[in-house]
């Protein structure tokens, strides 16, 4: 579900329909096959999930589930481990999203030039994009492997020391998984930005160049304004996806060492499916949504108000 909505913006531009008569029963006939599953298996469960956060639901219990009001949330407030994982989630999300954007922008700018190896870069960019996250995790475990991995061998070859056990070191685990996150999400971001770049009118570039604008000036005045909307939405979406990610880190470290890479989703998954605390885990999900929404709203409002983006 990663790329298709990368450039999602509200799509309400469709021309108005031909008339009210045309939209009656026929329309419902067309819409219901998708609408029913959406309501029953997506919207419904989401509301149910939010409701569960206010209950003491547990897995495999015979006694009936009871409403307990905001007790889960009050417990969460004092759950230091949860907030620690929340903090790690934010560090991870920012740590992945920002370098990912910078690298992807660089690559998109390069691919927009008339370079000879463009096709190869496009072909290679498919690899991280099409790979199962589980395989990406396994692959990087092989790279990071302390003895048989290529990373430490390269470090030894370059005479930079003995290398180390990256994924199990307390200090190195989070940076190590962040690097994998950057690698795996870069292609989607690149393609989205490239799409924006290809909408930039070429004449503007040439005019600016004729006026003697340097590369940086041209980027600031011509390129950036053109790709800003795409850049904004892809960054926001990347941030959310990264904050909510699971499989990659589950395979790489499973939250270790000592919880240093335990993202909120890993925490909630364990709470729900190892300890069976459905209500409590649902409350975690609600808090995650709420905080992320607030952060995003502030970010988007700030960026939009920024106008010409200084």
């Amino acid at each position, binding site marked *: 579900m990663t790329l298709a*909505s990368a450039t999602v913006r509200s799509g309400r531009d469709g021309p108005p329909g031909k008339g009210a008569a045309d939209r009656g029963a026929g329309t419902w006939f067309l819409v219901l096959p998708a609408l029913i599953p959406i309501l029953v298996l997506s919207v419904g469960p989401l509301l149910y*999930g939010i409701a569960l956060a206010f209950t003491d639901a547990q897995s495999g219990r015979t006694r009936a589930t009871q409403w307990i009001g905001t007790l889960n949330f009050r417990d969460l407030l004092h759950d230091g481990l949860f907030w620690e994982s929340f903090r790690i989630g934010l560090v991870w999300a920012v740590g992945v999203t920002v370098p990912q954007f910078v690298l992807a922008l660089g690559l998109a700018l390069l691919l927009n030039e008339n370079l000879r190896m463009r096709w190869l870069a496009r072909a290679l960019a498919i690899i991280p994009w099409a790979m199962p996250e589980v395989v990406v995790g396994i692959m990087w475990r092989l790279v990071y492997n302390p003895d048989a991995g290529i990373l430490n061998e390269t470090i030894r070859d370059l005479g930079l020391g003995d290398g180390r056990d990256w994924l199990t070191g307390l200090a190195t685990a989070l940076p190590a998984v962040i690097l994998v996150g950057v690698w795996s999400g870069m292609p989607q971001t690149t393609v989205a930005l490239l799409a924006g770049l290809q909408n930039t009118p070429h004449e503007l570039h040439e005019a600016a160049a004729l006026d003697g604008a340097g590369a940086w000036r041209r980027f600031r005045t011509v390129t950036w304004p053109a790709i800003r909307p795409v850049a904004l939405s892809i960054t926001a979406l990347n941030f959310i996806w990264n904050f909510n990610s699971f499989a990659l880190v589950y395979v790489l470290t499973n939250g270790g060492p000592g919880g240093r890479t335990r993202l909120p989703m890993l925490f909630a998954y364990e709470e729900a499916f190892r300890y069976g605390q459905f209500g409590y885990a649902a409350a975690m999900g609600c808090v995650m949504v709420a905080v992320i929404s607030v952060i995003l709203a502030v970010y988007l409002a700030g960026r939009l108000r920024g106008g010409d983006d200084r």
Partner: protein
Amino acid sequence: MSMRTRRSVRAGQYVALLCYLIFLAFPFLWLISTAFKPAPELGSLHPTWIPQHPTLDNFRQAFDEQPLLRAAANSLIAALSAGLIAVLIATPMAYVMARHRTRLSTAATGWVVVSQAFPFVLLIIPLFLVLKNLHLINTLWGLVLVYVVWALPFALWMLVGYVRAVPRELEEAAAVDGAGRLRTLVSVTAPLLAPGIVATALFAFITAWNEFFFALVLLKTPEKQTLPVVLTHFLGAEGASDLGPLAAAAFLATLPSLVLFAVIQRRITGGMLAGAVKN
């Protein structure tokens, strides 16, 4: 710009591109290299890029250790069904969303965006309970249900873009000729949409093939599990000797989605572009 600066800028660009290529390729090359290495080389403290004595033993061992064929079949069934069902029900709805500006299509578009933002844990707990009541836990059909709904947002998004790319005038011409609504849809619009529908189905297939979280929660026994879940079983005992089979199995699991993705990549990016431009 002088000739010389232009040339040095070009050179710099090529160096930068080369760095990107290395960064993108090296982990994958290492995976392949590891998959073909015999056990003694995997245990070596000085691993090499090229296997000294390449072997297929790791692949054989991988199939011996875990039910990979069974898992691949499960993945295939789940991903095929999800892809087919998703486009079958999404196409008509996408058509309505693209052509009619109703409150419904506004809400649907909003849902497409919002559904991207929810942490899956908020969805999976209630789904788990619902599927448990329907006795669909640990069945592929339960997983397919989840995958269909999960694939719908981006299927709708892609398809709406493809529908908008079909000129309205064609449909109007058919209407003038006296064709009914459904008739127009089937005989005029659908054929033009076909490549987009195929691309969307394949994309849904790939995402379902790669999916891990829902499969991990919903499938309990090894004979029901999909490929990504079975792959994680290789991680259990972490001796150096297990690296080879692990790499071999991981490499095999990637091939189908890599090949399919290479085939439809142009269409996917095209669909994204269409959506972005038409906005």
